[in-house]
């Protein structure tokens, strides 16, 4: 183990020496940047490689579109079905699992739809729709928005009507709006923890981090832009970053990153038995 670590460190060091003047552009989601996690990772990366990382923090959908246009070197996002589409089309390659956290369903303390304590997000969504209780959607092609649509689909409901509102906002602003209008919404746990004190909202359906619905699992993946499509992108440095993110050091930074004493992300790159499905689209057959 130690030997492998040292060898990896040596390779990383050699790469770092040869790439000192290069730049690396990472498109990612607001949840990884706004929490401060990426700054912690990028400080360590800059120490190792002497490369400052340009972070473009947008929604998952926008981050993948930037990758498709070849204006970034790699992406760190959280919407596996969408990631798979870009992998299958060959825009991105070499996907690795990095970390996960989870989503939770939150709502007003009065709980007008009576969903508090339910173990299935789909059942909660069904009851919210049946009660026509207000639900505030992000509606912005973010990873959270994609997951919300998956849950509606799994619940067999096409959301619509005056109770279903779309904010088009980032997670933090969306939570504040939901709090002000007494609406239910889907949020990643990290943003909710960071803002909880300013919100009149409670968790009504727990995610898998606290033993809740596995459908609310929120895994993050990192992928490099395909150098065959965009030879002018810095593929070598992108792979060095992926290596760093999934290395013991990168994974330790993720594990030790807390907000108000609570961890926000759980590292998943180092596994006892590697599962190579993380590299390729899930329905891929070689």
């Amino acid at each position, binding site marked *: 183990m130690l030997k492998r670590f040292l060898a990896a460190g040596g390779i990383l060091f050699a790469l770092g020496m040869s790439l000192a003047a290069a730049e690396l*552009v990472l498109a990612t989601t*607001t949840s990884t940047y*706004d929490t401060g996690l*990426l*700054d*912690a*990772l*990028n*400080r360590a990366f*800059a120490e190792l490689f002497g490369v*400052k*990382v*340009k*972070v*473009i*923090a947008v929604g998952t959908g926008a981050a993948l579109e930037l990758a498709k*246009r*070849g*204006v970034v070197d790699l992406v760190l996002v959280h919407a596996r079905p969408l990631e798979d589409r870009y992998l299958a089309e060959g825009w991105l390659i070499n996907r690795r699992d990095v970390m996960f956290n989870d989503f939770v369903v939150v709502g007003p303390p009065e709980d007008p739809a009576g969903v508090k304590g339910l173990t299935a997000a789909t059942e909660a969504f069904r009851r919210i729709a049946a009660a026509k209780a207000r639900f505030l959607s992000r509606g912005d092609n973010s990873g959270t928005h994609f997951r919300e649509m998956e849950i509606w689909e799994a619940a067999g409901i096409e959301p619509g009507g005056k109770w279903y509102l779309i904010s088009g*906002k*980032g*997670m*933090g*602003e969306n*939570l*504040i709006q939901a709090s002000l209008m007494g609406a239910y919404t889907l949020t990643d746990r990290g943003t909710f923890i*960071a*803002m909880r004190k*300013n919100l009149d909202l409670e968790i009504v359906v727990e995610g898998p981090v606290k033993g809740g619905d596995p459908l609310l699992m929120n895994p993050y993946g990192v992928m490099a832009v395909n150098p065959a499509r965009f030879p*002018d992108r810095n593929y070598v440095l992108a792979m060095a970053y992926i290596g760093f993110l999934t290395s013991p050091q990168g994974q330790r930074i993720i594990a030790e990153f807390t907000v108000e004493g609570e961890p926000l992300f759980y590292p998943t790159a180092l596994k006892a038995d590697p599962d190579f499905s993380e590299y390729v689209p899930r329905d891929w057959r070689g």
Partner: protein
Amino acid sequence: MGEIWDSFQAAFSLLAHPDRYLLSTILVSFKVSGVALLLCFPVSAALAAAIALGRFPGKGTLKLLIRTAMGLPSVVVGLLVLLLLSEAGPFKGLLWTPRAMVISQLVLITPLVLGVMVSSLEGVSRRVAEAAHVLGANRLQVAWTVVKEARAGFLTAGVAGFGRAIAEVGSVLIVGGNIAWADGTSYTRTLTTAIVVESRKGNFETALAFGIVLLVLVLCVNLILGFLERPGEAR
């Protein structure tokens, strides 16, 4: 109300003890908008003189186009510049740099600056031009006389252009990427895009405080410009 008052207090304590993040963000804001204005101003002045004083077919249509372009939404400009800069070519390396932000702000403010200049030139009485002509001025000298008479309007054009540039969020967010380095210094983050980040995080008080800082700084710029303008009025 309490929160708004808190924001004012936060803004002034930020201004009293600015940290590296705030200083570098202010610097990027002023650098990008200032350079955009400096590049736009002389070209617009020359174009405005040509449009206002020249006689050519399609002049009315051109002025209509300029006025319409004043209403360009900044996000649309940002997306257009993003797509242009993402085409393979010599400009591709410009994306995610302050220079890309200057380009998008140039597109955004030139119609405004140009439009105000044309109006102010046309507002100068025709008698001024005729008088200059009678006194034996050639065409260039006539133009110069009219431009001198319209200098208050040109100042307004500059102030309006700078104001739109520095208060604008949409295009710099898209083409600059809102980048701050991990050590907490801004690279392409402006005061306005910092407001977006803080507001996204739900830190409305800090976001408002940044807005107040922006306004206070623009006020200072206007005070200085007003001071510079005064000797001209006395002449």
